[in-house]
């Protein structure tokens, strides 16, 4: 029987409209604005100033703390300014503005397509390369990759899980790279597996992507035949269910283990990385290529087929520029989302620019996305049935509206992964997640405060 996570989950429509659109390379615009906050943790510190000449792939901002990451220039040209600019949510963040001149790359970067299968022996060197090339998790959280690959003392990885589930509707970028860059992803997996001490690696892909399963299985088989260090890598077909790609859910599906509340995956011997992260690790380690490009999907039901795309973009490109190259924003679009429709963010500012973790421009019509009027809870329990963490959103909603913090904590509001299943399922249009999200923030603050005393 096909594996999947054991609690809750929903089945929204697939809507992978752009799945057959090959990855195209976006032309470089005349100007880019590179944010220093492209990762989870402290924003990086800029090390360039106006007037500096930079090459593509050159470091322009340094990590400011343990959980932080290097940021590199994605283009060659002259730094025009370093200062505040609005991000997709409309908040000010330091951006480095660069006027593009030519396309010259920093030295030591291998720009060829040749597949490098020989894995460096020195794990320290590998981790240094992953760190220096600014690799972060590309599954959504953009957590610095080298941190996740160094388990704390006393903890050992039993399994590396590569997340190829891409359970969010509409998104197809992971699917495309699994088809077009399968071998590179497998090399990345072998590198990470070696760093983690040689544990097995499982590539989890949902059943609705048979071509990706085929391509990845073939890539694993071929590399195992022709190169060293690829044993113990396998592809696992997972049942289609959202949120399969949630870290905790994927660990449950693949390893039949559950991470304790407020715990980390490594506590149960799991390390989860997205397939796109694996590709970035390959580029960083084998090609010395910093993370300055990624693949994003331009899609939506209101977008004509010829305007659906999977683009390889460079960080710092204005979203409005990408939308225009892709064929313009459809008249009927009411909301533009960066990320999937379940967990992505609604874009408030299309002048914002791409970051390492950008995964899509998704256009939704008002009819698709405007919520209905809230009515009384009919106690159907569909929210609790859907919650993949086994929480009871109807109950948390009631406690949260009455500020009952002790009850919220007892009923595990802090375990919420904000997947949106509850709000999606509610027939009475109650804004469950909106309310639970706020309560979760408060309760986590209380728990952390208690720990410090």
């Amino acid at each position: 029987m096909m594996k999947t996570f054991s609690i809750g989950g929903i089945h929204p429509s697939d809507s992978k409209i752009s799945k057959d659109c090959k990855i195209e390379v976006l032309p470089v615009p005349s100007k880019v604005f590179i944010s220093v906050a492209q990762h989870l943790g402290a924003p990086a510190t800029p090390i360039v100033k106006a007037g500096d000449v930079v090459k593509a792939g050159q470091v322009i901002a340094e990590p400011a703390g343990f959980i932080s990451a290097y940021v590199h220039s994605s283009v060659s040209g002259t730094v025009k300014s370093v200062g505040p600019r609005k991000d997709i949510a409309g908040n000010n963040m330091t951006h480095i503005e660069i006027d593009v001149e030519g396309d010259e790359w920093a030295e030591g970067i291998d720009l060829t397509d040749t597949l490098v299968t020989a894995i460096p022996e020195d794990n320290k060197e590998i981790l240094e390369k992953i760190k220096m090339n600014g690799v972060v998790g590309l599954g959504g959280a953009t957590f610095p990759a080298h941190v996740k690959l160094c388990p704390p003392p006393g903890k050992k990885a039993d399994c590396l899980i590569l997340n190829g589930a891409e359970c969010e509707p509409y998104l197809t970028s992971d699917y495309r790279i699994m088809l077009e860059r399968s071998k590179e992803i497998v090399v990345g997996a072998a590198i990470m597996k070696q760093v983690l001490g040689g544990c097995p690696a499982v590539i989890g892909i949902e059943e609705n992507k048979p071509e990706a399963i085929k391509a990845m299985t073939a890539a694993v088989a071929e590399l195992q035949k022709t190169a060293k260090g690829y044993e113990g890598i396998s592809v696992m077909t997972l049942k289609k269910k959202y949120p399969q790609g949630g870290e905790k859910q994927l660990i449950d599906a693949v390893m039949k283990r559950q991470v304790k509340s407020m715990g980390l995956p490594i506590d149960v011997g799991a390390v989860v990385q997205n397939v796109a992260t694996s590709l970035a690790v390959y580029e960083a380690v084998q090609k010395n290529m910093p993370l300055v490009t990624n693949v994003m999907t331009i899609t939506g039901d209101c977008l004509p087929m010829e305007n659906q795309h999977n683009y390889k973009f460079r960080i710092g490109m204005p979203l409005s520029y990408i939308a225009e190259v892709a064929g313009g924003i459809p008249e009927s679009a009411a909301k533009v989302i960066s990320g999937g429709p379940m967990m992505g963010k609604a874009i408030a500012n299309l002048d914002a620019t791409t970051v390492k973790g950008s995964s899509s421009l998704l256009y939704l019509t008002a009819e698709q996305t405007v919520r209905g009027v809230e009515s009384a809870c009919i106690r159907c329990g569909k929210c609790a049935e859907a919650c993949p963490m086994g929480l009871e959103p109807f109950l948390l909603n009631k406690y949260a509206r009455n500020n009952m913090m002790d009850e919220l904590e007892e009923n595990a509001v802090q375990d919420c992964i904000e997947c949106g299943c509850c709000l999606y399922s509610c027939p009475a249009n109650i804004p469950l997640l909106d309310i639970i999200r706020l309560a979760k923030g408060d309760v986590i603050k209380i728990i952390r405060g208690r720990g410090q005393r």
Partner: protein
Amino acid sequence: MDKLLVSPSPHLHTKTSTKSLMRDVVIALLPAVVVSVLFYGWSELLVLGVSVASCILLEYLITKYLLKKSCTVCDWSAAVTGVLLALNLPSSTPWWVVFIGAVVAVGVAKMTFGGLGQNLFNPALVGRVFLLISFPTYMTDWAKPNGFIGNFDAFTGATPLGIAKEGGVAAIESMDYMDMLFCNIGGSAGELSALALLAGFVYLLVRRVIRPYITLSILATVAVFSGIFWAINPAEFTDPLFNLLTGGLLLGSIFMATDYVTSPMSNLGGIVFGIGIGVITMLIRYFGAYPEGVSFAILIMNSVVPLLNKWFHTKKYGRA
């Protein structure tokens, strides 16, 4: 587009709504409604019409003039109560008795608690039990059917459970279970055909309106409970199949006990809830003064639901 719409995730929503769920319950009741009208004819149509119309009208008047809230009639829940109440009454019930039932169901059991989602007891059942206690003669007058189909010669004018209560097991020996499965038995309109009710059950499950736990738990409990007693003394106690097919057990366990508002939230709570209903039903049937006890059993267990919700929670991820 002129302006970007911004809101927190998720950005998509299921097409299932309160209205569509309630409408599905009405659709699931249609087979039973059709059978009852075919069998009992115009009088049943009158009961159904009066019940549904008065439930909807009362909810409209109460929300508009007493609660001064926006109208909730469009969510179909009043219609569900109306159909269920009608199916719980004999076809011969006078129209004004039906109306009083509707007043108690919607006016007292539902709206005094604050309307849909707030009531502790199943409105249709409160209406039925109120009528059963207040107008026992009307409520047990199993009139001779004058419907459009049916084998009226075999009709006895009393419910199988009533016959068993009066005459013991010997009195029901001649009854044919196939009749119970299709329609030729006496009783409330909705108790006529087990098959029609089961068809509704399948529809509700397929449309994912209800989960099967409560219904199956009730039926299993009734089967096991009556099975034990029947095995001990088949001369005194009726057999499990008879108990499953007769009375309001199927109507109650499929459509009334599974009412969202008045049943437990968790699956485990639902199973315990169902066991309670099954045991109380059988205690009343075997040892009580009334021949049938499903309504009372559900109402008694309704009152325990808040406790069951407190005791039984869903299984949480990563917590033993």
